């Protein structure tokens, strides 16, 4: 017997300790049942909708990997044309691959056109659905199955693509970063994003137990560490101005975060590992300085 009242139902096939399941739950909790959700191909889609089942208690549609924002555009236009838009929120929930890589053209177009919807990127920093391949969200020096460490490589050679800034450049009235490790912060921002008219963007940091290599009980703990090391700054940007920054009380060294994950394990054994960790610390310090964390 199902006793929960959550809009994201149990019985889904997410891993034990799944970050995407948490993200979906928080978003629906924040927005309520008067919404339509669009999800691209990815972990969240696959584990939540194995035919003939669905974990979604709101209307939900999956079309393809790279067209989420365009599908959302069509839904918004249809609701307007049919006089059904009213207070119904349209929320697209895409992974980092679907958002930052393959879906960026459609996302850019939808934001430039100014559709009234919220796009939430649940960023677990690689293609987890297909077995942990690199995406544009994969951080500097992380290993994935397509950016493995080896004699000639320390993993992913490039830093994460700064997606929130790209969305900001589209003139979005609301761009926010948050983490599944801060449910209240995340729910507040998602709700706010859906309440603001126009295309709004929330980028959610989401540690993946399987892809990053840590115990499933630590999903939230890892997310917290990313924020506390300043590797993932949480903020709100309204009409182009930073209006809120999550301040770090006890700033932690990046080693603590890196050590806890298999994807960075090599940094503690390869010859130039210390140098790379130093660079990662510099990235964190830059964030802390830039955003006054």
């Amino acid at each position, binding site marked *: 017997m199902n006793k929960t009242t959550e809009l994201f139902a149990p019985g889904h096939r997410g891993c034990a300790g799944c970050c995407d399941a948490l993200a979906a739950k928080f978003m629906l909790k924040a927005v309520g049942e008067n919404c339509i959700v669009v999800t691209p191909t990815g972990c969240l889609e696959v584990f939540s909708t194995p035919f003939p089942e669905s974990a979604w208690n709101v209307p939900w*549609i999956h079309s393809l990997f790279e067209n989420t924002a365009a599908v959302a555009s069509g839904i918004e236009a*249809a609701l307007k044309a049919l006089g059904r838009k009213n207070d119904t929120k349209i929320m697209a929930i895409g992974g980092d691959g679907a958002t930052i890589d393959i879906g960026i053209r459609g996302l850019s177009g939808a934001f430039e056109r100014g559709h009234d919807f919220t796009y939430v990127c649940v960023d677990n920093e690689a293609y987890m659905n297909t077995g942990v391949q690199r995406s544009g969200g994969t951080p500097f020096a992380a290993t994935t199955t397509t950016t493995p460490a080896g004699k000639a490589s320390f993993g992913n050679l490039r830093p994460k693509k700064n997606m929130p800034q790209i969305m900001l450049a589209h003139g979005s009235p609301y761009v926010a970063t948050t983490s599944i490790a801060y449910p209240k912060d995340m729910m507040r921002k998602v709700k706010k994003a859906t309440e603001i008219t126009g295309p709004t963007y929330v980028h959610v940091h989401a540690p993946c137990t399987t892809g990053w290599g840590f115990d499933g009980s630590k999903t939230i703990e890892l997310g917290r560490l990313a924020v506390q090391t300043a590797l993932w700054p949480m903020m709100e940007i309204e009409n182009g101005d930073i209006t809120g920054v999550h301040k770090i009380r006890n700033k932690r060294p990046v080693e603590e975060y890196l050590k806890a994950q298999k994807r960075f394990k090599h940094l503690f054994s390869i010859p130039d590992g210390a140098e790379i960790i130093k660079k990662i610390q510099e990235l964190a310090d830059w964030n802390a300085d830039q955003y006054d964390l």
Partner: protein
Amino acid sequence: MSKLTVVEGSYAVAHAAKVCRPDVIPAYPITPQTHIVEELSQFAANGEIGACEYITVESEFSAISALIGASAAGARTYSATTSQGLALMHEVLFNASGMRLPLVMTVANRAMSAPLSIWNDHQDSIAQRDTGWIQLYAEDPQEAADMTPQVYKICEDSKIMLPAMACFDGFILTHVYEPVVLLEQDLTDEFLPPFAPEHILDPSNPKTFGAFADPSIYSEFRYMQELGMSAALKKIETVADEFNEIYGRYYGGLIDGYYLDDAEIVLVAMGSVIGTIKDVLDELRAEGKKVGLLKIRSFRPFPTDAIRNAVKNAAIIVPLDKSISIGKYEGALCTEIKASLYNTKIDIPVLGYMFGHGGRDIPPERIKKIVSEAEKAIVNGITIESSYADLREELL
């Protein structure tokens, strides 16, 4: 002739789309489809399509994706594209038919690159043959316009629920000015009921669209699409009749014939070349030649039974293709006609010709030459099953 007015083919089609009362039109301009979407955006800007939302998407990929979202939300949708744009939609075309969304799209047929060509042939839509879309081909601007409400009525049928392409030849028909009856709003309202799908994206009755299927159920969904196509076979015929009753115009259902009944040589074609062939056949019949035309109006669903019945008394069948399957050296009509006759008692030679690729003009003389080749083949048998009828050997 009082109802006729001289307009461009694109205008006639855009106007036809307008009177079908679409709710959402996402479109991306591409030659030679541009005039259609320009006219529609003007209609929308004038407030002539009700509350219709015209979305200027950033690519054909997003156009068709927005169509999916809009249709799932309960909207009647329309778009138009061609060639490279249609190819860019390829992945989404499967998605639309698999989700059983009755999208309607006009395809202004154009050749595929490379080499880059903006001119007409049928390679673009033929290449999308297996995406699960209904494909009808029009022979002139009037039929292209009239086809628009017809395809809505066909694909929105609850037993069908498949997307449809209304194909008409780029430039040759999109850019021609000629007298056309612009579809009347009142007649169209009488002919075409409002779109009322059983399931829509609606928070008051939440449904999940686009779940994933494991191997235990995938084939069944494909088969159900096939059942939808089968239902369309009959529906295309009845809708053509219903259209005739209300508007008084008829172009055939799945197929149509011209001098077909007693024809020894049966030419098979689709699209704008039909008109030229008809003129040629008038001449040849006057000379006593028993030549007829089988017009393929529906390429998907493919009207196998209707074709068998139509050609069974011929001495030779001559499919004329504006497409080529490279590596088979024949066009789609040729392949499919032959396949339709195999495993039957119909044993008639099939002599295929390809022509008009990349916009190469098809003058009446070309048709006459093909007919004379067919006459020889009746006597001497077929030596080459399929070939280009208009290849410039001197360039090779």
